[in-house]
């Protein structure tokens, strides 16, 4: 008992998002606990696991409080030294600090690191600060206060007015005003209504929803309770994809804890309001992220979209009025109710309020999960938060925003503000928040082909334009990258795109041509080079690669000769290298090693 009276003065917060877990953060946690016990520091130091910290590229991560020191790339074997130096002797362990790429300066404080200081956390406000599996941690940071306010002090109309005035728009991709959606459903007649959460995140490279669920599952539950009161529902479902085991585990824990506390179930907080939430595991079909398909899937039917209207607000799950919002939208709701709509709409731009979470990946130094206010420029995201493009010789070429439904925004438009309207003007969409940075080694035809392959694979096949149209487009792109492109191909792609967009049944088909359209719009010359010159400027499409040495640039060093695995290069000292095209396997080794750009 004596021991428990003491206050643990240091909290080590270990990132336990999927990224860090997969590089061993649980092992590091266990090693830390053991070592701390060994050094008899257990009643001084608390080791806690948190959700994703965001800086996924540098995991396993640890942040120490109250000092706010950020440690990266901690491995089990580093632990004894770390405990001795940092915890026993009070010295910062330099080896694990973040090093600023510009000046190689090691930065201890998390708030001094550009990746973190340039972010604004609303949805992810609890990341790294609470243990997502401890409900008291969530309550400590104002958790369930908004639900309490909504249930005991507000009428459904007041809740909807607050959400409408906040101006929040759906974070799942559509950008439809959330308050309006709720109002439609609240006005719909029907004694039984449903509240749904879309956690079927399927875009390649996107992990926003997963991170929110892993870091702060109670925020989503609380948002759904508030939404349920607003529309008069008493049953909620979270449709979460089965490929997110950690998110599912934390959600299950969160639901069980909330039920135990009476924050879910009958008579929540003595308000007389009842609400239940159940999980439904999605089986991995991309199209089930579409609302009507998702509802059919919950009903146990094949997940295929149906024409709208009737909209789900009137006829949704089991043909009853339903509100479906994305994970990120739900996680914003408690904040809006607790802090008020005025606070929320002071963030972001006039028409796109609040913040947005993005999964920043690709050719950028700081890969991870970020949250920024709506309206910041792409440049700020890529350079201030992302730290710029790795590699001295590489240049930014484009940013792919919005996944397979989005488009490629070229470097020339890098100052575009990231809000719903401005991004749509470029031909892309904000989408759910995937953001892939591409440097000059990316072939835009190849990128378009990659995303189209995905949509062709995931098209449910119900409507012809999407099923057949995207397939035909893919045939053409295939042909172009193999050097068999025809002069009319670009025009055919444009015509097909317009047809598919206007006649497809759901969002999947209506947006599937976006990657192709935007790459043609901004990088038409690359398509032309493939078709007319049978050349891939970014050296990605293997069938079009014919390497040769430019004798005037060759310094006769022989690096390419040594790098060639297929003996296609002949070279003797003091002579220009020669490449035998017939033997060349297009492995790119010689191209990569040549320091003088003399291989083209």
């Amino acid at each position: 008992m004596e021991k428990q009276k003491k206050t643990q003065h240091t909290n080590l917060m270990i990132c336990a998002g999927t990224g860090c877990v997969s590089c061993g953060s649980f092992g590091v946690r266990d090693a830390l606990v053991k070592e701390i016990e060994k050094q008899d520091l257990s009643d001084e130091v608390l080791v806690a696991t948190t959700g994703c910290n965001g800086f996924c590229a540098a995991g396993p991560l640890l942040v120490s409080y109250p000092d706010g020191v950020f440690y990266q790339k901690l491995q089990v074997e580093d632990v004894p030294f770390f405990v001795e130096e940092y915890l026993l002797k009070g010295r910062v362990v330099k080896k694990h600090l973040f090093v600023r790429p510009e000046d190689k300066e090691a930065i201890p404080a998390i708030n001094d690191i550009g990746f973190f200081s340039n972010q604004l956390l609303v949805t992810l406000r609890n990341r790294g600060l609470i243990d997502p599996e401890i409900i008291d941690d969530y309550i400590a940071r104002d958790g369930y206060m908004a639900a309490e306010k909504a249930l005991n002090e507000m009428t459904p109309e007041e809740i909807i007015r607050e959400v409408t005035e906040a101006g929040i728009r759906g974070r799942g991709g559509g950008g439809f005003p959330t308050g309006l959606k709720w109002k439609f459903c609240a006005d719909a007649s029907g004694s039984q209504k449903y509240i749904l959460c879309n956690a079927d995140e399927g875009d390649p490279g996107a992990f926003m929803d997963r991170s929110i669920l892993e870091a702060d599952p109670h925020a989503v539950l609380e948002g759904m309770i508030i939404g349920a009161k607003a529309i008069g529902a008493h049953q909620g479902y979270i449709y979460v994809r089965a490929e997110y085991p950690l998110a599912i585990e934390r959600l299950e824990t969160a639901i069980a804890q909330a039920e135990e506390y009476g924050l879910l179930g009958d008579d929540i907080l003595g308000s007389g309001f009842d609400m239940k939430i159940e999980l439904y595991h999605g089986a991995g079909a991309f199209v089930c992220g579409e609302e009507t398909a998702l509802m059919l899937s919950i009903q146990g039917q094949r997940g295929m979209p149906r024409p709208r209207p009737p909209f789900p607000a009137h006829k949704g799950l089991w043909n009853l009025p339903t509100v479906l919002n994305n994970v990120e939208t739900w996680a914003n709701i408690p904040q809006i109710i607790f802090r008020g709509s005025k606070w929320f709409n002071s963030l972001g731009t006039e028409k796109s309020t609040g913040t947005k979470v993005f999964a920043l990946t690709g050719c950028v130094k700081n890969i991870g999960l970020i949250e920024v206010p709506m309206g910041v420029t792409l440049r700020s995201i890529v350079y201030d938060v992302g730290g710029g493009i790795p590699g001295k010789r590489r240049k930014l070429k484009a940013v792919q925003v919005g996944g397979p439904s989005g488009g490629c925004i070229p470097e020339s438009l890098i100052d575009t503000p990231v809000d719903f309207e401005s991004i749509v003007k470029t031909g892309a969409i904000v989408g759910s928040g995937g953001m892939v940075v591409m440097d000059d080694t990316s072939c835009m035809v190849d990128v378009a082909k990659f995303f189209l392959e995905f949509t062709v694979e995931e098209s449910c096949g119900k409507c012809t334009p999407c099923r057949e149209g995207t397939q035909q487009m893919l045939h053409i792109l295939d042909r172009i990258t193999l050097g068999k492109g025809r002069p009319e191909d670009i025009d055919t792609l444009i015509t097909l795109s317009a047809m598919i967009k206007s006649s497809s049944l759901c969002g999947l088909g209506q947006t599937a041509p976006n990657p192709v359209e935007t790459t043609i719009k901004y990088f038409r010359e690359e398509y032309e080079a493939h078709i007319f010159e049978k050349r891939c400027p970014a050296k990605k499409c293997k069938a079009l690669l014919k390497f040769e040495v430019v004798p005037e640039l060759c310094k006769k060093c022989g690096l390419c000769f040594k790098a060639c695995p297929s003996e296609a290069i002949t070279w003797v000292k003091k002579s220009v290298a020669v490449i035998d095209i017939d033997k060349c396997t297009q492995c790119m080794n010689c191209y990569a090693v040549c320091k003088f750009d003399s291989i083209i």
Partner: protein
Amino acid sequence: MAKLKIEDLRRIKESKKGTVNLREGVYRAKVTVHMGTCGIAAGARTVMNTLMTAIGEKKTDDVILTSSGCAGLCSQEPMMTVEVEGLSPVKYVYLDEEKTMKIFREHVIGGKPVAEYAITMGSETTY
């Protein structure tokens, strides 16, 4: 666990306030115990334990406790630096359990530095 009422929600929040403050870096007073080899040898661990118990018993949630390396004055260890909001930091030397408790009561909680145990006001300038 019985079902929560509104008061319970507030109570849980209140009871975790110290942890939240610690993680957010919000504090009124910060106590740094110098835990170099010299400090530890001279008994810095006792000072640390005393403070942890004191904070725990008093249930203060706005005092944070941290350790640092040797302060360079090894002959006068154990040492600690107390920074109370609005006051200059004060370094205390030759500490033991009793002195630590007095400093905790009068300076950390009361806001009045204990001159008899202090060696200096202010800290070195660091670059």
